[in-house]
């Protein structure tokens, strides 16, 4: 009896062991190395100092670039979610077979190498492309103009890359919205918008938050997209970090910048993840206050 209880008590830790080992090897150790590098500007066996952090705050340059990077990633994530919302909703209401076919079509770009996607977008956004020809016809673009080598080109690419994933995450959240709820709301006179706002949105909100975080984090660290499409004025912090690690041969400064990016990302993710609990708490508070009056 006792032995069985001991075994049962041990099962959970034993089962968690591989995950813990992977976490230690792949997350904790590299992160510790990163922090150590950032304090060792003269190489890993040199004395520790704050030089890299001093250089980072010496000019407002790098803080600005970090903010610009986070804002760019934030905009790209919000645009992605906005674009993904209605296809995800439509998919969640479709019958099985049609839905699976469409899901398959959506997943194709996600299975393609992102470098290939970048170069195909490069052609699509170029001055000779059909899209630019259409914009020229409509008088929206000057002849020979394109958005290549600009910040918007990077945003377009980030959205394109992350759209399939976002649709999937939203779709799986929306699938759980029961049609009978919508029918009930409809019978009480709620229109399409009200049902979307007061039933679908709150029920899909957790999926929306996960989707936003899932795409925002890699977008914040993106550098290949901006290196190829962004032009000199569209570079992101990721580009500077990549340069420090390779050509500039200054892993310490690169690590310090990575930590800046990591902290910025954590703060923003914390804010986004905190919105719902905060709103719920506020709502509960209001209901509690309203209760005696009712």
């Amino acid at each position: 009896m006792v032995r069985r209880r001991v075994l049962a008590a041990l099962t959970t830790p034993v089962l968690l062991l591989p995950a813990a080992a992977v976490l230690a090897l792949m997350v904790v150790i590299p992160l510790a190395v990163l922090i150590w590098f950032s304090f060792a500007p003269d190489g890993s066996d040199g004395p520790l100092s704050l030089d890299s952090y001093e250089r980072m705050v010496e000019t407002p340059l790098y803080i600005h670039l970090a903010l610009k990077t986070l804002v760019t990633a934030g905009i790209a994530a919000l645009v992605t979610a906005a674009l993904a919302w209605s296809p995800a909703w439509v998919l969640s209401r479709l019958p099985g077979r049609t839905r699976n076919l469409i899901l398959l079509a959506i997943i194709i770009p996600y299975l393609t190498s992102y470098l290939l996607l970048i170069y195909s977008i490069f052609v699509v956004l170029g001055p000779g492309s059909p899209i630019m020809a259409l914009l020229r016809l409509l008088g929206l673009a000057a002849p020979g103009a394109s958005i290549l080598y600009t910040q918007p080109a990077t945003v377009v690419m980030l959205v394109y890359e992350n759209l399939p994933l976002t649709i999937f995450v939203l779709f799986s959240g929306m699938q759980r919205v029961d049609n009978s709820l919508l029918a009930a709301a409809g019978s009480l006179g709620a229109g399409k918008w009200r049902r979307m706002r007061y039933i679908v949105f709150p029920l899909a909100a957790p999926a929306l938050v996960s989707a936003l975080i899932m795409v925002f984090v890699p977008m914040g660290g993106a550098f290949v997209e901006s290196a190829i499409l962004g032009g000199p004025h569209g570079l992101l912090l990721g580009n500077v970090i990549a340069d420090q690690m390779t050509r500039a041969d200054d892993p310490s400064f690169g690590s310090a910048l990575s930590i800046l990016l990591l902290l910025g990302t954590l703060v923003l993710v914390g804010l986004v993840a905190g919105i719902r609990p905060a709103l719920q708490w506020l709502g509960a508070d209001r209901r509690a206050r309203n209760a005696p009056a009712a």
Partner: protein
Amino acid sequence: MSVSRRAVLAAGALLALPSIARAQSFKGKTLTVASWQDYGADDPATLKMFEDQTGATVKNVYFTSEDDLLEMLREGGIGKIDVALPNLEYVKPGAQQGLFAPIDTSKITSWSALAPRFTGDPSIRLNGDIYAVPWVQGATSLAVNPSVTPTPNSWAVLWDPANKGKVAFFDDPSTAVMTAALYLGEDPQNPDLDRVRKALLDLKANVKLFWSSGDDWDKAYTTGEITMGNLWSGLAGTLKTNGHALDFILPADGTVVWGDTWAIVKNTPNPDLAYAWVNFLTSPAYFTQWITKPGPNQELAVPVNTAAVKALPQSAADARLAGPLLDYKGKVALQTGIAPKDLKKWTELWEDVKAS
């Protein structure tokens, strides 16, 4: 009569003797060559020429960066590797670290034919000795679309507000700083960095693309996104050969030139064979063989040996703009001679400009 004929024959045999003796003396020996992959020193046809001439076998070892080469030599390469291919910039650091052997230039057959801008440069010298034989060079100079008129003769065209959004610029700290210094009329090896920083920030307002590969440049140029910029002479030649209209200009205010060299590694097991290699690799026969047969990276190579340039077929010389580079009498900013601590400052400056 017969005596004199015999004497002539004997003299002929005597003259031929050294080369025969050399071929036999290297038989069974192996020369270890450290170089970039696919960059002339491992071209099969030319290797065969060398092996036929000397009887020796060549073993290639590759490095992936100049620092990698120096490390390779420090960590056990000395005594095993015979010759190495450092960039001009890395000759002096290598010599200072005791990795290269001094070169007896009287044993270098092509020495007097090498372009004096290289053989006279202090960066291949240390304490009165010479440590490298300059091999190939290239310019990173001004390239413009012929539609840009009048044809510019100064770097100032890249700074002209009229060309906003039309400029491509090489993403490399030392090229960037040196080009800005030439534009400002500063000493390219030792410019006023505050002025350079300001000039590069001004330039950035015009730049559409910081390029790092020939492919970046080609894509933007052939689609009309850019009409000018700085460009490697070899890539400019390739674009022209492929039928694209392009003017490659060595401007009056000066141009930036890089060079690769051959160094003999300290304590080489085969010093005579090492000299034979360097002599072969800098010879007109070698360059004609390597450059005129299709192969990787040979578009970058302009021989430093002026006799080798003259021996090239005209089309091959034109394709790499070898003639203009050879004849250029203007100011040359050689990419070398920058102390590591200065280079670090230049790199930081360039990163700041890019991050701005």
